[in-house]
């Protein structure tokens, strides 16, 4: 039986190390990694104190591998520009492995190039690769909703008004999943908790993020978190208004010395180090690399002054549970429109592929996707 006969889900459940589908082809250039050029493309500036910086800092581990040259290009929009940038890396720099770190790079750009350059390996930072896609392409991703779930547990025990605020950029699958998990976490310890979400409509729009944070506080929320490219403004606004907050993407603890509870962080370093080892040993990179606490792909920021004893204890316990594979999505859970997502007794595995396709908010979240 070939590995690809397995559905991803069964594979996930059978694999102790999160999920990893090994590429059976390709890597001809990697196999003798005497001289490998690795290209990395970022959608924004590399030092944005957000998504791109998290990747850039972690990817630096590739530079330590002997014989590997890393070339990086930042602020590449999700247009033909990214296709040409990657092609330029291949044609002019001789890149044999490319990391594309923004969602919108995948379809059609990474897929097109993977078909056009079968000798070059492409890895993309989102859970999008399927077995129908070229074998020299692949995905790597940390399931951050696990960390947002733990944030939610801590937030649920930190709120007095039972209203939690969430500043979100766009209503896409990953963002919606994080919001849902945050609420599930909060409700686990505080059944009266609700989450009020405000979409800003842009990945980075500091003024509107600040307005959204203020509006949430004015509406009675006393814990804020967010999913935007640079959470700095939301965290600072929360601190300024004297309420508590949970971070996102990277550690924002120093920005809120009084109210910071904890935060949800990717741990890209684990993944890039893994890749670096594979490259150093001339091994094939997996087509699909993903996971959460179990494989150390995500983490929570060390607790800040805003975390109470009870919140810390509950959050630690919740994290241990998730790490052990206990599902976050356990019924009964209804969608916002009242339809049943999970009835009592049902649950979804934390790596259930349908969660990647989240296009709904659950009951208890106020705010509309459209």
């Amino acid at each position: 039986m070939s590995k690809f006969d397995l559905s991803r889900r069964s594979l996930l459940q059978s694999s102790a190390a999160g999920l990893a589908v090994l590429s059976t082809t390709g890597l001809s250039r990697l196999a003798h990694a005497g001289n490998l050029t690795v290209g990395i493309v970022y959608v924004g500036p590399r030092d944005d104190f957000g998504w791109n910086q998290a990747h850039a800092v972690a990817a630096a581990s590739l530079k330590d591998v002997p014989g590997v040259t890393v070339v990086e290009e930042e602020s590449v929009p999700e247009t033909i520009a990214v296709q040409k940038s990657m092609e330029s890396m291949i044609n002019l720099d001789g890149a044999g492995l490319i990391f594309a770190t923004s969602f919108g790079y995948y379809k059609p750009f990474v897929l097109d190039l993977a078909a056009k350059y079968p000798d070059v390996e492409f890895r993309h930072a989102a859970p999008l690769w399927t077995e129908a896609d070229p074998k020299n392409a692949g995905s790597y991703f940390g399931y951050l909703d696990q960390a947002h779930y733990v944030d939610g547990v801590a937030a649920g025990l930190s709120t007095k008004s039972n209203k939690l605020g969430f500043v979100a950029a766009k209503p896409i699958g990953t963002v919606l999943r994080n919001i849902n998990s945050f609420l599930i976490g909060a409700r686990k310890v505080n059944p009266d908790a609700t989450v009020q979400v405000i979409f800003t409509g842009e990945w980075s729009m500091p003024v509107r993020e600040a307005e959204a944070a203020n509006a949430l506080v004015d509406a009675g929320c006393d814990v804020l978190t967010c999913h935007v490219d640079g959470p700095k403004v939301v965290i600072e606004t929360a601190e300024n208004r004297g309420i508590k907050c949970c971070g996102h993407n990277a550690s924002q603890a120093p920005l809120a010395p009084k109210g910071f509870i904890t935060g949800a962080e990717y741990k890209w370093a684990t993944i890039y180090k893994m890749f670096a080892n594979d490259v150093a040993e001339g091994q094939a990179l997996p087509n699909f690399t993903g996971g959460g606490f179990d494989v150390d792909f995500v983490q929570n920021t060390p607790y800040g002054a805003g975390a109470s004893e009870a919140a810390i204890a509950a959050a630690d316990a919740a994290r241990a549970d998730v790490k052990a594979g206990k599902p976050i999505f356990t019924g009964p859970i209804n969608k916002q429109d009242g339809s049943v997502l999970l009835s009592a007794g049902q649950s979804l595995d934390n790596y259930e592929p349908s969660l990647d396709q989240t296009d709904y908010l659950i009951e208890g979240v106020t705010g509309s996707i459209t």
Partner: protein
Amino acid sequence: MNDEAGLATVLLAMFAGAIRVSTPFLFVSLGETLTEKSGRINLGLEGTLVFGAMSGYAISYHTGSPWFGVLVAGLGGTVFGAIHGYLCKLPRVNDIAIGIALMLFGTGIAFFFGKAYIQPQAPRLPSISFGFWAENPSVRQALEINPLFLIGLFLAIFLWWGLKNTRWGLVVRTTGDSAPAALALGIDVDRVRLLSTMAGGFFAGVGGSFLSLYYPGSWTEGLSSGQGLMAVALVIFARWNPLYCFAAALLFGAAGALGPALQSIGISRGYHFFNAAPYIMTLLIMIASVSPKRSLKGAPGELSITK
């Protein structure tokens, strides 16, 4: 939440938003009013604003003094204004095009040197609490007012009065309305325009520093999202009247708060349009208030954009 409480929340948010968000628009549009009154248009103030935001933040971070940051931001803006003012006096050089080039250049320089300041926290400008009397914490918060807002208000009044009633006001207006007439009066047209553009640059730089040093209060490359360009456009909307600039900036700030505020009380269907409220509103007001029959009142006759 019942309807009445919801409405109160939205109105309060719009009031607070007007005060919080309007200041950069106010400073840029006041500066541009002065520049345009002298007969030049400087579209480059977007670049000046961004550079002001970066330099103000950087200086505040290094010196620990946000007010010194504001000053340096203003001086940086003055330099950009001087470049614009000087280049545009050369024959055949188009002020709109130079403005666009400076927008690019200013933004580029700010991004280039601003990389190191995205992560650190710089000391921010203080605010004055006018809401000490209020019980409601949201009202108290709304009345936390930054001194720059008040300075902007006084500046608007001063410019409005000064343009009408002082000698330099007359000189600027004459220069803007008819360069030949100004020449005939012995006015050095180029110099007046250079100084007006430099002053406009100073204000725009200060407006930028408000963004990074007070609200939202940190430096990132997405900080402005076109506020400088929009503020230049608001000058036409405000018909070159500093007091109208103040009103327009307030209105624009209030409308910008509408989207998040409505979402915060649970009205979120179609939030994209609420978020675009400032633009929709400005357009509707312009359609309703401007008429082709009336010539643009207050428009400087020399201005390339209204000729």
